[in-house]
């Protein structure tokens, strides 16, 4: 045997390679076997052969059973995970109150966050149901008047026609839509319904990609055609295909049904439309497609992919201005395109410039609240877990002594957080399912249950994991850092510093709650403030309707006589625009010969009947109403207080106005009376200056019901008479006070959501506080026992236990007040004219409320601890 061979060793690299992939528990025997083989080979053969053989043997160990990457059946990984779950479950069952507070709080937080998430998604996907979402634009115009720029979306038919004739190289489709949703009565056989819809040019349905159920998108090519929404078609025709059937509009025109489209989602521009008919039909007989002085159209277009929106904007601006010539030079118009992507969230203009819109602000605002509520709930979780840490200090100590690594303890706490958040997630899904219908109603949305939405699940589960991570991070980091000896010796005392994070968290929670309480009260104040304004007329006891009959004006005297004869009706008034709208604006008034510039001021102008003032209950400040006894009243007007102030007239009755709008000859009118301002538009804005003429053609009917009559008696009688006079038109009346109340909808919505959020924040905060208080009471059981033995009274002990928390909440008040003040004055500054002052009592009430909640929550635990028998607490050692 060659001596040198004795010192040869197996190839190092092969050995290292073997150890790299080989299971650790096989290393010893395998290396031994291979060594033996190597030396045996070496004895018989050359060193090279032996080395080669060693490599060969190593490669032959590349088998599944030997790989360390394959799970070993001796591994305890799954065991540890099982163990973690078991311990977590035991912890959960052992502390039922804590666990339910924890899980319930988290579930509430998650539900709110999900609701808000759905809401925000709904806002952000507004109009995305249209296939051409990215290329549809609307033409807007900026008018400047006396240095003030206002942005407007109604254009003339001439502009739309010019666009579709001369701009085909930039637009694939162009469609004009009547610039207002129109209410019509649609009937088939004996069914008749008053419905809202739009009049649109033929390219509209294709451009807006209406989802057709029956018929095609070419349905608006013929003059007398109409497309119905699925729900309207169901109401009129049941489940049959209504294409080529005929519906009658306003009991006058027969229209052919050319298509049925699926109802448009609630978060889209034309959501309210239950029909689309043709613009030619709308204009038939009274206007052309080439008028340049009546702005009554929205103009939409679908841009070609290669056209640049800014370039096209300026081309259109030039073309329109050229056509308008000098006639409106002083108006200083500017036309531009507004892309569909901006319509919903980003279309507020001040002085012709895009500003951050209220809608966007709300998206941010609710998003922030959702995040806050979730953070509050997570904080509770962390808070309660750390609070119980001292109880679990021994467990951590023993685990560490037995050899637990810190990473294993961290895993334990994360698994616990995961289990809790998983349970909370399940609970929150149930809550979500239960609360979504209510939420939709309150927020005015049509959000559908998201169960079949993959991205919802992805997000929700990701969100659950993040929550677990967030909620588990603090206990995981904090509890796992205990020193075993201290923890086991029992000298572990969290000390003053350990309580600081907990206190900070309580203060944080209550600060948010108090801000929300103050916010809720202030929003309510603002609504009340607007509600308390004098309305200027009396909506109570009045019904309004818009009779959809071609013979409305003709048969009006008959109706009046019939209604008067019933004895249930005090007055019947009519007007051309609704009392709840601010439609109808005209300039061209002149009342002061020395100052001819006054023609630029525009006034809200409506036409009313002799009895309108009595029917709606207008209040006269000066002068008198129109009277049939004076034929000259035909050339009289009524003005309101704002108009009087705007005209700077001290004693306007008897003054003569000259009125010369662009569409009418100059005429002179005498002011007959001055009435109190009526809130016709938003009750959060100051009233408009208004001039009322005596008119002849009306569309709105107002019936004042006699004071002595009850509504339930009067309405059937009125309905019978109405149907007698207008057999074609449905008696679709509204109570004027309900119509008026609708003006508060947006603010009421904010108010009810704010209430909801603040109640939730309070619940979550007090849940957290409750848990902490019971923990503290438990911690101090022995101390309380000894104190009691020594003679402390229950009230002594109660104040001892409550004092700390009360101080914390007072601190929260101090922090919350300036925050609430600045946030709310920001919100209120959006209401320039009608704004509630911020009362000091709001802050006091919020603070006192928070304190009360704290005291009640804490007292429950404190008194329970204080009245307990000291023997029980002291005998345990």
């Amino acid at each position, binding site marked *: 045997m060659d001596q040198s061979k004795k010192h040869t060793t197996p190839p190092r690299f092969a050995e290292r390679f073997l150890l790299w992939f080989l299971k650790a528990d096989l290393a010893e*025997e395998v290396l031994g076997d*291979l060594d*033996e083989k190597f030396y045996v080979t070496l004895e018989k053969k050359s060193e090279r052969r032996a080395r080669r053989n060693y490599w060969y043997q190593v490669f032959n160990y590349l088998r599944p059973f030997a790989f360390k990457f394959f799970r070993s059946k001796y591994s305890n990984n799954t065991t540890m995970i099982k163990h973690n779950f078991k311990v977590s479950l035991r912890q959960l069952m052992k502390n039922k109150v804590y666990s339910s507070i924890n899980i319930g709080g988290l579930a509430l937080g998650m539900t709110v966050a999900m609701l808000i998430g759905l809401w925000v998604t709904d806002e952000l996907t507004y109009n995305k149901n249209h296939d051409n979402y990215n290329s549809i634009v609307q033409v807007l115009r900026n008018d400047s008047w006396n240095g003030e720029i206002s942005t407007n979306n109604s254009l003339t038919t001439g502009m739309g026609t010019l666009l579709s004739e001369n701009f085909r190289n930039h637009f694939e489709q162009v469609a004009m839509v009547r610039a207002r949703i129109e209410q019509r009565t649609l009937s088939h056989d004996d069914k008749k319904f008053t419905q809202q819809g739009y009049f649109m040019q033929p390219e509209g349905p294709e451009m807006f990609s209406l989802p057709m159920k029956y018929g095609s998108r070419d349905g608006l090519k013929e003059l007398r055609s109409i497309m119905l929404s699925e729900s309207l078609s169901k109401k009129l025709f049941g489940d049959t295909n209504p294409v080529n059937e005929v519906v009658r509009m306003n009991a006058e025109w027969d229209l052919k049904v050319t298509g049925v489209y699926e109802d448009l989602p609630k978060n889209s521009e034309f959501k309210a439309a239950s029909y689309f008919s043709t613009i030619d039909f709308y204009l038939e007989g009274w206007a052309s497609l080439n008028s340049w002085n009546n702005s009554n159209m929205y103009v939409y277009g679908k841009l070609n992919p290669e056209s640049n929106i800014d370039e096209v904007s300026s081309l259109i601006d030039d073309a329109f201005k050229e056509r308008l010539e000098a006639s409106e030079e002083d108006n200083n118009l500017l036309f531009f395109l507004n892309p569909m992507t901006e319509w919903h969230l980003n279309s507020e203009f001040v002085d012709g410039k895009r500003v951050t819109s209220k809608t966007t602000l709300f998206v941010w605002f609710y998003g922030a609240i959702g995040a806050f509520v979730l953070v509050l709930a997570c904080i509770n979780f962390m808070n309660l877990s750390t609070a119980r840490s001292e109880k679990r200090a021994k467990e951590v100590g023993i685990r560490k002594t037995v050899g637990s690594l810190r990473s294993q303890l961290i895993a334990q706490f994360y698994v616990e957080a995961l289990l809790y958040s998983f349970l909370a997630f399940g609970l929150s899904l149930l809550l979500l399912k239960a609360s979504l219908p209510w939420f939709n109603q309150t927020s005015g949305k049509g959000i559908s249950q998201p169960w079949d939405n993959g991205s919802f699940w992805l997000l929700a589960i990701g969100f659950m994991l993040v929550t677990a991570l967030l909620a588990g991070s603090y206990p995981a980091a904090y509890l796992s850092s205990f020193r075993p000896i201290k923890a086991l010796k029992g000298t572990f005392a969290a000390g003053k510093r350990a309580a600081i994070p907990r206190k900070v968290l309580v203060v944080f929670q209550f600060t948010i709650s108090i801000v929300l309480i103050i916010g809720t009260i202030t929003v309510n104040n603002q609504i009340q403030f607007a509600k308390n304004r004098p309305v200027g007329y009396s909506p109570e006891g009045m019904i309004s309707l818009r009779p959809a009959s071609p013979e409305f004006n003709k048969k009006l005297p008959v109706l009046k006589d019939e209604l008067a004869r019933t004895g249930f009706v005090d007055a019947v008034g009519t007007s051309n625009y609704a009392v709840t709208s601010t439609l109808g604006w005209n300039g061209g008034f002149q009342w002061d010969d020395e100052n001819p510039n006054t023609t630029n001021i525009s006034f809200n102008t409506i036409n009313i009947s002799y009895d309108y003032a009595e029917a709606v209950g207008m209040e006269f400040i000066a002068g008198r109403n129109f009277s049939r006894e004076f034929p000259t009243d035909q050339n009289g007007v009524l003005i309101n207080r704002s108009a009087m102030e705007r005209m700077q007239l001290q004693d306007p009755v008897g003054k003569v106005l000259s009125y010369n709008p662009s569409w009418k000859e100059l005429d002179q009118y005498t002011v007959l009376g001055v009435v109190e301002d009526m809130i016709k538009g938003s009750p959060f804005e100051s009233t408009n200056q208004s001039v009322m003429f005596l008119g002849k053609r009306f569309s709105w009917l107002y019936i004042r019901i006699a004071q002595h009559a009850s509504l339930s008696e009067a309405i059937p009688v009125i309905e019978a008479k109405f149907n007698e006079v207008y057999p074609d038109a449905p008696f679709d009346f509204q109570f004027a006070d309900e119509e008026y109340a609708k003006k508060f909808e947006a603010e009421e919505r904010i108010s009810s959501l704010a209430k909801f959020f603040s109640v939730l924040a309070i619940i979550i905060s007090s849940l957290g506080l409750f848990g902490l208080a019971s923990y503290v009471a438990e911690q101090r059981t022995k101390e309380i026992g000894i104190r009691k033995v020594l003679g402390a009274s229950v009230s002594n002990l109660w104040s001892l236990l409550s004092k700390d928390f009360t101080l914390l909440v007072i601190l929260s008040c101090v922090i919350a007040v300036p925050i609430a003040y600045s946030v709310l004055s920001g919100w209120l500054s959006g209401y320039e004219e009608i704004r509630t002052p911020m009362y000091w009592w709001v802050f006091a009430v919020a603070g006192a409320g928070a304190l009360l909640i704290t005291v009640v929550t804490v007292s429950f635990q404190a008194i329970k601890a204080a009245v307990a028998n000291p023997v029980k607490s002291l005998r345990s050692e």
Partner: protein
Amino acid sequence: MKETRLGDFEETLLLLVGILDMEAYAFKIAEEFESQTTRATSIGAVHSTLNRLSEKGFLTSEMGASTAARGGRRKRIYTITASGQRTLEASRDFKVSLWNQFPAFAGAKLNFNV
């Protein structure tokens, strides 16, 4: 339930474990296999099969003594279990019964009953 039938290689190894008795560890078994059958194999293949046989319950093993040739490392000694032995016997009986049913062999009076 785990597969309890034996493959050819498995059966041979099982027999070799019985033959080698206290020296039945992967390297030795592989050597013995090569010298008795003149077929080449690797320690890894043998080890893998021994592992499989242990999983089936035909073998048990424990760590045995170490030698200098192994760099002081211990070896894993395999022993046949009762169930292993039964399976071996069943396998043998089955083949003998097949042989007995084959007239040509049976006539030659070959004696396979060892």
